[in-house]
């Protein structure tokens, strides 16, 4: 078994992370990327986030609107819609349950932290 690194874990939970950082505030692509990185997901790749945004939009969890920008191209903002919020709630529960299970397993088997 190869060692688990953040990049691998991210693949499974990036959807959730993106939905989560959009919960309180809409954001454009690079803004979302910055929020994820400043929250501690430094390894997240640009392409992964933009691809994920595209997929979440296609799945109907996000709405978009364009805001003109003075110094560059117009920015497309992403916002959670009702479906997105319910998806965030559901996935959040699944993740918490999973994380708790993993914590328990690691604690019981005496894995060092």
């Amino acid at each position, binding site marked *: 078994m190869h060692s688990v690194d953040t990049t691998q874990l991210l693949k499974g939970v*990036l959807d959730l992370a993106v939905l989560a950082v959009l919960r309180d505030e809409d954001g*454009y*692509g*690079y803004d979302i990327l910055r929020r994820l990185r400043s929250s501690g997901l430094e390894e997240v*790749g*640009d*392409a*992964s*986030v*933009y*691809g*994920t*945004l*595209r*997929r979440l939009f*296609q799945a109907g969890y996000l709405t978009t609107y364009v805001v003109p*920008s003075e*110094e*560059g*191209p*117009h*920015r*497309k903002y992403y916002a959670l819609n009702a479906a997105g919020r319910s998806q965030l709630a559901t996935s959040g529960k699944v993740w918490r349950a999973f994380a708790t299970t993993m914590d328990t397993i690691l604690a019981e088997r005496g894995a060092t932290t």
Partner: protein
Amino acid sequence: MTTLTSTEISDYLQRVRAALADLPAETREELLEDEPAHLAEVLAEGGADLAGRLGPPERYAADLRAAAGLPPATGAVRAPVVVDELLNNIKVYASRADRAAGRLVGYPRLVDLAHLLRPGWWVLRGYLLGLLVLLAARDEFFARLLPFRLNPGESLVWLLVVGAAVVASVRVGRATPGLSRWRRWAVYAAGALIVLLALVNLAPRAFQYESGPSYYNPFGGITDVYPYDQNGNPLDGVQFYDQNGNPIQIGEYWRCHTEYPDPSIDRNPYRYPLCPPSQWRPGMEASAAPVTSEPGAGPSAQPEASAPATTPTATPAASPGR
């Protein structure tokens, strides 16, 4: 946004787009909708160039489509990750060197200067191609391959051929970044080939006046010199010097000397005649003179009796074949 950054963005974007070429156009453009703004943000942060920050465009495209839940590129051959990473590291180091060199010429990066010079390269490439076509038209073999006769001497023909080649080259140059990887490399290879052919075929013509002194040097065909005194007697062991005291060494020393002289011992080993006088007769081709003397036999060993009994006063420079 400056022209330079927009060029870098459009180049990167075109390569990403090329790597997504198998997707339906609508899907592809949706996927790339945010990219101009994204790439502008990345560049605005400074630091490395786009490939240094985001990895090669092809890998970026692969990550993008994977995250978007699209199938991997059909028929795409992806290098193993190790190779991919290695190449990218090389690119990152190259990027640093690029910046350092760029500071020397007053640009953020050397590539910026190269980007600005690119249209110049397109024109040069077309110009060289046009000249090569004209050159080929002069050649009998290639002229037969052409459906029409080209007369490279006519300035109108010159203008048309070179002009058409320049226009074609510039159009190809503008379209190159959008081509698939293999076609792009084909364009680069063709450019290198044109430069190579131009160097081989055109450069010698451009420099022929410098490289061919025999075109104007009347002494170019001389292989030996036979001095005579005022009474018509052949002289032996004569040395020539110019007005500055530098030895004049014309003729072909090796014809009658097997060992080449050592200039550190003998500053002017050219003692005329170089070959024995008996070898020469008036009207005889100097280059056709048979070489029969023993190795090392100096001209000074020649008996006077064998001197040619002709041409008393004037110096009969032995260049009848001029």
